[in-house]
């Protein structure tokens, strides 16, 4: 029972992180039909900004803030420079551009930050589990992870559904031509979407990196795959699906790696991903879409 609780809590915490990556992918996918393969690399870049700021000021919170702001800016920058042209191209071209950007960002990070130094991103809170009735239950860090992802999800959901900006963003995503005729500045809305995605990705990086041994440019490659899986499980079109997909894949993978072996994390991810893609390719929460001719 103790193990079950441990795996469940871990699964929820990691699921929240995957959900955050998935949300980033879904925001961009909905708006532009591009799957941003550089999302993980962008998030690592934000984490490096956090490391620099924390190193200079000694404050974790300033570092976190810097990461989130740089995530926003980098997301916008990437859309303005690279993806604005790629959006209108066939899907494979956009995938390859994303891969190019992924290689480029990781290489540039490797050039700036030599590997002779060991860098880490610290956790905001301790990871000692609080005990309730003598059962270790949940650590403050777990609560922080789940809480901050939830807060960001709610904020983004509120922005999208309850504000004029959100309405314009949704209009730009679903009916760009009509939106343009109604006076919406479509390109600007798309840039804003990419910026929000960068924000969600940066948050995921700041939450997941404390669990890995070291901050290296490739640190998010695996997390990107997990986030992609979460997004596919939920349906690439649905922000709610991203959250549910994150939690579902977090739990499934936590149980597999907990009860079987932690080596099986990525193999199990592959199996989960392929299973969902073959059985229900549109995901759990997406409306069925006929294949375009």
């Amino acid at each position: 029972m103790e193990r079950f609780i441990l795996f469940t809590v871990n699964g929820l915490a990691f699921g929240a992180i995957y959900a955050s990556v998935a949300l980033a992918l879904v925001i961009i996918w909905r708006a532009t039909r591009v799957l941003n393969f550089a999302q993980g690399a962008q998030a690592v870049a934000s984490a490096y900004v956090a490391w620099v700021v924390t190193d200079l000021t000694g404050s974790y919170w300033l570092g976190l803030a810097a990461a989130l702001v740089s995530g926003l800016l980098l997301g916008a920058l990437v859309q303005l420079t690279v993806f604005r042209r790629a959006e209108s191209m066939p899907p494979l071209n956009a995938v390859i551009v994303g891969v190019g950007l992924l290689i480029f960002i990781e290489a540039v990070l490797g050039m700036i930050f030599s590997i002779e130094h060991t860098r880490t991103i610290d956790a905001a809170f301790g990871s000692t589990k609080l005990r309730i009735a003598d059962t270790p239950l949940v650590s403050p860090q777990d609560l922080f992870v789940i809480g901050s992802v939830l807060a960001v999800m709610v904020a983004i959901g509120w922005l999208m559904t309850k504000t004029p900006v959100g309405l314009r963003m949704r209009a730009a995503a679903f009916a760009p031509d009509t939106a343009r005729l109604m006076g919406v500045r479509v390109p600007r809305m798309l840039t804003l979407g990419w910026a929000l995605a960068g924000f969600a990705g940066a948050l995921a990086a700041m939450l997941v990196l404390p669990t890995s041994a070291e901050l290296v440019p490739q640190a998010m490659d695996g997390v990107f795959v997990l986030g992609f899986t979460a997004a596919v499980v939920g349906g690439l079109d649905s922000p709610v699906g991203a959250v549910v997909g994150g939690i579902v894949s977090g739990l499934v993978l936590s149980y597999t790696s907990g009860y079987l072996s932690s080596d099986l994390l990525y193999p199990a991810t592959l199996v989960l991903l392929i299973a969902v893609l073959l059985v229900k390719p549109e995901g759990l929460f997406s409306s069925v879409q006929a294949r375009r001719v």
Partner: protein
Amino acid sequence: MSVLRNSTLLRHLLVTASFALVLFLAVYLVDDFSVNQVSTLAVYLCVCFGLTVLIGGNGQISLGHAALMAVGAYTMAKFLPSYADEFGQVSVGVVLAGLLLAIVVTTAVGAVIGLAAARLRGPYLAGATLALGVAVPGVTTYFHDTFNGEQGLPVASPVVPESMASAGWSIDRLVALIAVGCAVVVLFLVANLKRSGFGRHLAAVRDHEIAAQLCGLSVPREQVKAFALSAATAGLGGGVLGLVLQGANPHSFGLVLSLTVLGAVVIGGLGSLRGALWGSLIVVLLSRVLSELEVNDNAPAAAYGLLLMIVMLAAPGGIQGLVARLGGHLPRRSPQPQGGN
């Protein structure tokens, strides 16, 4: 001349023969330090010839080709030791048999993956193959007894035959010779396959799935065939890379390798075998030149990344597309999703 124009086979034979001549001269003439780079080039060529048919010729994509290369390398690592002599070396014949086995095993694995891939499109396929590539280290550690985890397995070296040894051939040079031989064979076979009914079926499926179906082609079957073909060449390339590195381990067959071969075919020009040649040359030369300049270990990767984006955004036909345009040839097919001819 008209014989040449009319016989594709003859033309391909001539081109392959000149290609072979250049590569064999390279193996013969380069210094001991560079001979490994010739082998690496040949490995990239093997893999890229297949990958370019998959991406440019059939419109599928793979971000996890290194996983298939790993299958080839691990097959070699498992097969060779039973035939090793007391120094742990094997004869050239056994190495060639091992490479054949690597092709067979990888083709089978590729066909299974292709069955799943045939149901996926664009970004979904890209993500799924990426997940495949990322899963390799986990599999090797979980089945530690079979694959020896992170450490990996050694791949036995071939024995240099007497006659060559007396002429001063090193093991590295012999491996380069084998590698180059493989690249030549792959080029000849793939070039002919591309121009045959097989290749045209793949192109038909790439260009318009529904039209291809109406012509009586089974879209999934053609896609599985394309995946199996690219897996076969990747398995061969991986087996040879195992020989070059004298080992198979998850790190050497990681995401970096997958993305590098993808970069090579894109930069060279998708769908074109000459493009695959340009791309592989660029990847090998770029890392050689930049490492001699001692800029930074990451400089070659930064350069590929940048090139990859520039090529896709500005010249989707890649180098071969530019060459064709300079030569005044218009692309023979209308520009397809993945770019040129």
